[in-house]
């Protein structure tokens, strides 16, 4: 393993402190509970908290700021933050209008955020609502499973629910907007290489020089199939087909598109992929309202990318366009 690193066990703390030093007027960091929050809490708006394991940078700390999150709770690499950490984030950003937890749908995250919400409701009478993002179409959703996992689509939930909260909507309204985004967003990812979890020190899986892992998540979990590396155009077509047919999105609808790098794939390739993706999305009769290309929800140092498509309506379009001022996204 070759990384810019001091001691592995200090990674999350040092990374968060490096982030605070880069954005000292915007962000604050609680070292004990590893909470990145806005430097100044606005008690008059619904508070938005997200978080999860670390290793997804800039998610989630990079999306803390005006128009998006109020706090991000940082677990260890790929491990949900504990109930106590989340509980303290709720206390720290407590507002008059209540708190919305934006949880990526993973057992660990759900259990910890749920338990923390119950604690805050029972012990501190804080109104806490929760939404679970589950945009990854690589995972089959059925009654018998925990359902799809949450990946890059989470950023659209942060952005749109964040704008709703900033406009002064009630907890119920912000939650409804977040759920509308979740119902309309789908993603799919692929890996050219595994990531390396620093504490483990070696890649989680290995791929041959001409192989990809199709349908991966954001933790180095295996995807749904291992296969030969296709061209960017073939990859785009197949992924867009699978995403668009899942909801399904219908011709004439407007969408936002996100081409998300998983950490080690350069912008060069992401923009090249967007070239094909945009064509495929338009070939489906969809109208691209806005596109985001970059590293938003990564899997440490994995080479690969994910494609996210979000169906928009007048309300979500306006909220997507609303001002946001965070380290990783400014609009």
């Amino acid at each position, binding site marked *: 393993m070759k990384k810019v690193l001091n001691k592995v066990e200090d990674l999350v703390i040092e990374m968060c402190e490096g982030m605070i030093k880069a954005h000292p007027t915007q962000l604050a960091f609680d070292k004990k509970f590893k909470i990145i929050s806005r430097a100044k809490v606005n008690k008059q708006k619904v508070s938005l908290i997200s978080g999860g*394991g670390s290793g997804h940078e800039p998610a989630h700390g990079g999306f803390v700021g005006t128009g998006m999150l109020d706090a991000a709770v940082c*677990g*260890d*690499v*790929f*491990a*949900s*933050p*504990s*109930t*106590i*950490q989340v509980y303290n984030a709720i206390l720290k950003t407590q507002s008059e209008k209540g708190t919305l937890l934006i949880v990526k749908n*993973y*057992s*660990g995250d759900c*259990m*910890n955020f*749920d*338990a923390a919400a119950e604690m805050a409701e029972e012990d501190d009478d804080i109104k806490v609502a929760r939404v679970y993002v589950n945009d*990854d179409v*690589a*995972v*089959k959703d059925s009654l*018998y*499973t*925990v359902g799809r*996992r949450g990946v890059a689509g989470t950023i659209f939930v942060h952005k749109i629910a964040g704008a709703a909260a900033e406009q002064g909507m009630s907890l119920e309204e912000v939650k409804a907007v977040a759920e509308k985004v979740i119902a309309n967003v789908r993603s799919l990812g692929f890996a050219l290489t595994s990531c390396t*979890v620093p*504490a*483990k020190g070696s890649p*989680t899986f290995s791929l041959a020089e001409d192989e990809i892992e199709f349908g991966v*998540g954001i*933790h*180095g*979990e*295996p*995807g*749904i199939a291992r296969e030969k590396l296709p061209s960017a155009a073939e990859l785009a077509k197949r992924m867009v087909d699978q995403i668009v047919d899942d909801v399904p999105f219908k011709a004439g609808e407007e969408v936002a598109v996100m081409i998300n790098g998983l950490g080690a794939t350069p912008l060069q390739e992401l923009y090249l992929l967007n070239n094909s993706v945009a064509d495929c999305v338009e070939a489906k009769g969809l109208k691209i309202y806005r596109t985001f290309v970059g590293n938003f929800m990564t899997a440490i140092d994995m080479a690969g990318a994910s494609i996210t498509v979000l169906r928009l309506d007048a309300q979500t379009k306006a909220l997507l366009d609303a001002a946001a001022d965070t380290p990783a996204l400014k609009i």
Partner: protein
Amino acid sequence: METFTKDQVIGTIASMCDIIIENEVPFCELDSAAGDGDFGMSLAKGFKVVKAEWANHSRDDIGAFLKDCGMIITEHCGGASGPIWGSGFRAMGKYAHGKEALNLVELGEMVQAAIDAVQKRGGAKLGDKTLLDALIPAVESIKASGSAAETFAVALPKSAAAAVAGGESTKLIAATKGRASYVGDRSISFPDAGATAIGIIFNRLLAR
């Protein structure tokens, strides 16, 4: 009637901490095949704090001791393991409130309380390819031994064997809960990390 004393319980938890810390890497490897490879680390992280804070845990009774351990696990274990093992320990603490010793029937009831709490927290059931697939057969075995008034010496090895068999059985099923569920059928033939770990921990405890 034969009982497990408070000191024996405390000694068992001390051994359990050591076993979990020693197995950090192998437990991570168990989680690599279909999970995300951090199970050993997440678990060890909390149990290391349990050990570091050893002198500070209440010794008032078995329940108070287990509850203090449970709080630390809830705070310091990462991932799914924090709420699962934390709520399990806290539930055992609640059950054993005021107790200075446990007979076999009580031991069974206490572990059952842990299982109930884990199920309440995570929503999994037998056959979902989680550590419940090892814990449930183990507790059933203890309960049967309790009804048959067996000695600990007879009952515990049987229960450990049931846990191991339960862990083995998870090889045959596709995960439906936890991270391994995302790979669906590709999780078949790999046993669940949590369930396998339960079998290993039980056996090592007996060996001490």
